[in-house]
């Protein structure tokens, strides 16, 4: 057999494997640092937790050709204006509760999770809460006793009772409101919010 050409040799591919892996990983590390700084709470893409004091909407932006969160005037949650620290604590309680109750193995959050129940990314803005006036009350009641306030949309699928306390329910709602303000590059597309006209 002829001598193996360089491009087919073991040592060439060994070096290539090492360089490609190291190079890709280095680029990933640089991009990670950039992404984390651009998505810290309080950045343009991921608003500060005190955004729960504001009205949030999700509208089509003609210039950008995609749906974008729109943050408006004051619209207090549970009739209270939260300081940055209080807002952080409330959202944190909500986030922790969604993990402790294993929400993600039925629902999706930012589109990730299981597919047995609706996506929660823009749940705060969903038309299912009928009107802005009724929304907060309906959400608290639903979370604390989903069995008797079931929202099955004709599917017979009911959320089980997860022993969510009133404070935890308020935390979850604050978390959902904050999450709906994140700039998700236009996902989900064509979402009509509770404020949208038919």
């Amino acid at each position, binding site marked *: 057999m002829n001598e193996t050409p360089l491009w087919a040799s073991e040592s060439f*591919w060994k070096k290539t494997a090492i360089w490609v892996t190291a190079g890709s990983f280095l680029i990933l590390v640089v991009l990670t640092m950039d992404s984390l700084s651009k998505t810290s709470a309080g950045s343009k893409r991921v608003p500060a937790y005190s955004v729960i004091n504001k009205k949030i909407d999700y509208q089509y932006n003609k210039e950008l050709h995609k749906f974008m969160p729109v943050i408006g005037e004051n619209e207090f949650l549970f009739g209270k204006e939260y300081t940055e620290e209080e807002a952080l604590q409330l959202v944190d309680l909500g986030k922790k509760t969604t*993990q402790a109750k294993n929400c993600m193995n039925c629902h999706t*959050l*930012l589109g990730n*999770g299981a597919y047995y129940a609706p996506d929660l990314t823009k749940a705060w803005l969903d038309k299912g809460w009928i009107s802005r006036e009724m929304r907060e009350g309906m959400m608290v009641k639903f979370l604390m006793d989903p069995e008797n306030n079931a929202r099955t949309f004709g599917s017979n699928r009911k959320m*089980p009772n997860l022993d969510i306390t009133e404070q935890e329910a308020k935390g979850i709602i604050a978390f959902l409101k904050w999450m709906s303000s994140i700039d998700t590059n236009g996902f989900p597309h064509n979402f009509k919010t509770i404020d949208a006209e038919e």
Partner: protein
Amino acid sequence: MNTSGLNGVMQNAAALCEKSRACLNNFKAWVQLDSTNLTDGQQLAVKYFTVAVILFFAQILFGLLAATQFIYPGFLYEILDFNVNRMIHINAMIVWMLYGFIGCVYWFLEDESGTEIAGLKLGNIAFWVLTGAVTLVVLVYLLVQIGPGKDSSLWFINEGREYIEAPRWADIGIVIVILIFFYNVVATFSKGKWSGIAGVLTLDLVALAGLYVAGMFYMTNITHEQYWWWWVIHLWVEATWEVLVGVIMAWSLMKLLGVRRKIIQTWLYIEVALMFGSGILGLGHHYFWIGTPEYWLTIGGFFSALEPIPLVAMVVHAVYDSGTHNFKNGNHPALAWIIAQAFGNFFGAGVWGFMHTLPQINMYTHGTQWSASHGHLAFFGAYATINIAFFYLAIQHWRGDVWMGGGSQNAWRWKWALGLLNGGVLGMTIALLIAGYEQSFIERAVEGSTWGGYFTAQNHPSFQNAMVWRLFFGGMTFAGFILLVWDLLTIGKGETRKAPVIIES
């Protein structure tokens, strides 16, 4: 409690112990496996394989329960809710595959290094610690299920993060066990001899263990949390696991077909270059919609579109090697499962992944049954198959290198198990794909992902029918699994012919 009652309990417990010991002895007499055929490392490996098969059973069982709930939502409502079944379904899968991989490595470690395992005792202790921890975690999943919104729930019940739900204490345990495993691999190769396969394996295990740590932290900011969460999930299953499988495949092909080491190792390096070159930045396809900057649409789309290339290379590799050796091999079921791996990996991970990876389509498919369709074929095709192939290699050796070529007794069993398992998973994949198409169009494109839109799609007849078909094919998969276990326990029993000796050519 009075003493006579206590005595009664003790007597009952003793009788139960005696009975189970008798059962175990009867079972041992029935399977007729001779462990003197195995080296110490291989005896450790078969322990891992045994637990892997039990967890594989749990994966299918809880998958069937969850699939049933899609059709009858009241089934086990508030007893074993969908989220519990689904969590155990996917956790059992991750863990059984890891058990399989660790078993494979322990199996060939002594052969590849040419020496005995450095820390055998430590390896055995780690096995029992890990198995005890897994049992405890599953019991808590089943019996406690959820906790209040406090740190203690994340530490002791579950972390509520898909795929890596294991509570924090178990995370720390897993890292320690993996470090012991890593020590054994490195120390054994250092004691014996290093090879290209050994080098790739070692570096891959460093990455595999290190990445797990990235997923162990709680964060309020969900964008950051999901960012790191994907580091673990994606860089495990679409990078480090693929390379680990490449290593296992490389060793298996040398043993099964007698492929030359130089060719195998060159291929392995090519695969590592292609796999990491596309897979590391392919991570970006998970960063389209979680709040991360727009440049990920370009980077993630481009590199993840390249991800099928190494999988094509692996198909070429397996088919070429089999062809040049005229399919002459000493273990027909193992080679059949390796071929199934090459194609399953290519279609499940490659084609099914590529179909919805570009952001222009992913905008509508993200978070629908498309992902479930891809997940079923990819995990089965890429990882279940290679483990099953290895189980056959192991059982052959355990029986004393008996004949497992053409004309074996009861060969229909492994052939039917192969057919039912592959057919079942493929059937589920197609059913879920149809459901995914329907969801993308109706829920996403037309209705714009509102809750009303979600349920309009879920209630649609084509979705409902797809769920029935998925359950049917799940049943077929289960039947294949039962047959597989029966075959693994009985294949080669009473066989007197020896396997042909395959030499490197």
